[in-house]
């Protein structure tokens, strides 16, 4: 396979050698180092074989010495193929122009690849770069990576380092995100634990501070559960100073929720007419050239527009600054659809369950729940009543007057 490719690139010639002693031609070839293949014996004084294009002159020269006649029967390979276009000046000019455009193209940025970002979106980085003049179509040597880094970093506080390296027509943007120091918790700051929600206390675990409630107590929202202010002396020794502690702990309680949502019994639904229209455009860097139908007038009624962009590249290796865009327009009509009460109740229950899960957080659990629904006009009012168990303690700092 490799040999065939090399032969094709170098070009090969099939020659016919006529001589009284044709084998002498072969011996001559081997003596002069002329490689040949596909030898065919045509007769007592004739044979034909293939040899590379470069060896033809040497063979002719050698054959003169032994009186052999060399005739070219067939030519093949890249040099002969391109030789055909020697006089086709327009084609040569077009090829040269294409090559020149390709070389010129490689001096501009046509693609970006951002790496190293996890929390900062790629779009934000590209927008910041664009604001500093680095975008598609920018001359690759018109900026310095360090300058861009200095100008972009003040805009993106979550990044601590940025580098733009241009290779070919692609800009590789490497970033490092800033690692924020964790928030320090002041363990000694005096705090109370109060109820975040009203409920019936089931379990109190005070790690620091003094319990103010016992299991079985009903508490209101904001009620003190674990006190950070402890009167150490009590009534017997009133002269001893009050101690301020960091009230910490967990208070578990049963809580009750009643959530409602209105689900419409009739709603509008898209119904595609089945018609389909297409619009095409060529994107050249930042420019957009529409092809065929004129823009927004393509779809008079309501329609969905689906854009499909295909960036062009040269053999999948070199990306070109051209993107082919196909827009598909799917016209639709809105149809009024009625849903049954059961369907509406299911939808409402799903919405309310998700809402309840968000309110409870990951520690809370549902003990029991009940769904009720009632038709009110054109809507169904779905109500979820749930009994849950969750941690309701919330730490609140105590304002201590130092004076």
């Amino acid at each position, binding site marked *: 396979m490799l040999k065939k490719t090399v032969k094709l690139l170098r070009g090969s010639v099939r020659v016919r050698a006529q001589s009284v002693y044709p*084998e002498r031609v072969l011996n001559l070839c081997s*003596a002069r180092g002329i490689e040949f*293949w596909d030898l065919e014996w045509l007769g007592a004084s004739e044979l034909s074989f293939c040899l590379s294009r470069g060896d033809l002159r040497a063979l002719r020269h050698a054959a003169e010495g032994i009186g052999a006649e060399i005739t070219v029967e067939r030519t093949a390979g890249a040099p002969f193929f391109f030789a055909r276009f020697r006089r086709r000046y327009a084609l040569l000019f077009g090829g040269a122009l294409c090559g020149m455009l390709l070389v010129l193209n490689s001096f501009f940025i046509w693609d970006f690849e951002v790496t190293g970002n996890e929390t900062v979106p790629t779009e934000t980085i590209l927008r910041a770069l664009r604001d500093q003049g680095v975008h598609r179509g920018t001359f690759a040597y018109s900026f310095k990576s360090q300058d861009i880094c200095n100008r972009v970093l003040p805009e993106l506080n979550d990044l601590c380092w940025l580098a733009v390296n241009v290779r070919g027509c692609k800009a590789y943007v490497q970033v490092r995100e800033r690692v924020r120091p964790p928030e320090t918790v002041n363990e000694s700051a005096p705090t109370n634990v109060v109820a975040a929600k009203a409920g019936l206390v089931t379990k109190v675990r005070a790690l620091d501070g003094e319990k103010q409630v016992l299991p079985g107590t009903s508490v209101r929202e904001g009620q003190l559960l674990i006190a950070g202010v402890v009167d150490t002396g009590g009534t017997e020794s009133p002269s001893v100073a009050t101690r301020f502690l960091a009230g910490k702990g967990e208070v578990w309680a049963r809580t009750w929720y009643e959530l409602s949502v209105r689900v419409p019994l009739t709603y509008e639904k898209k119904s595609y007419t089945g018609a389909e229209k297409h619009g095409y455009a060529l994107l050249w860097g930042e420019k957009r050239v529409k092809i065929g139908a004129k823009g927004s007038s393509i779809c008079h009624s309501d329609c969905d527009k689906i854009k499909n962009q295909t960036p062009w590249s040269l053999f999948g290796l070199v990306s070109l600054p051209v993107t082919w865009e196909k827009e598909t327009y799917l016209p639709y009509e809105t149809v009024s659809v009625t849903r049954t009460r059961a369907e509406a109740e299911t939808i409402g229950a799903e919405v309310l369950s998700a809402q309840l899960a968000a309110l409870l957080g990951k520690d809370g659990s549902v003990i029991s729940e009940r769904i009720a629904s009632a038709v009110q006009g054109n809507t169904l009012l779905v109500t979820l009543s749930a009994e849950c168990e969750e941690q309701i303690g919330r730490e609140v700092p105590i304002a201590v007057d130092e004076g």
Partner: protein
Amino acid sequence: MTRAAEFFDLPADIVAGLCHLEMLGDRQLFLEGHGGILSYGTEQIDVNAGPLILRVRGQDLTLRSMTDAEVRISGRIDAVEYVR
């Protein structure tokens, strides 16, 4: 020279300039140190092998490659003989 090479247990192809012959079943023949092709045909090829002529007989014989030192013949080889 050949006898001297054999006596001293030296490689005769290097010392005495004898040709070196290798065969791959009945499909290929490789000859090193030849002196040129003497006659060529699809059923018989004669190669100059120093003081002797190496005759290869068979069917669809072709000269696969040839340089000034080596020659490779392929096809269905029926017989290889030396002609003195």
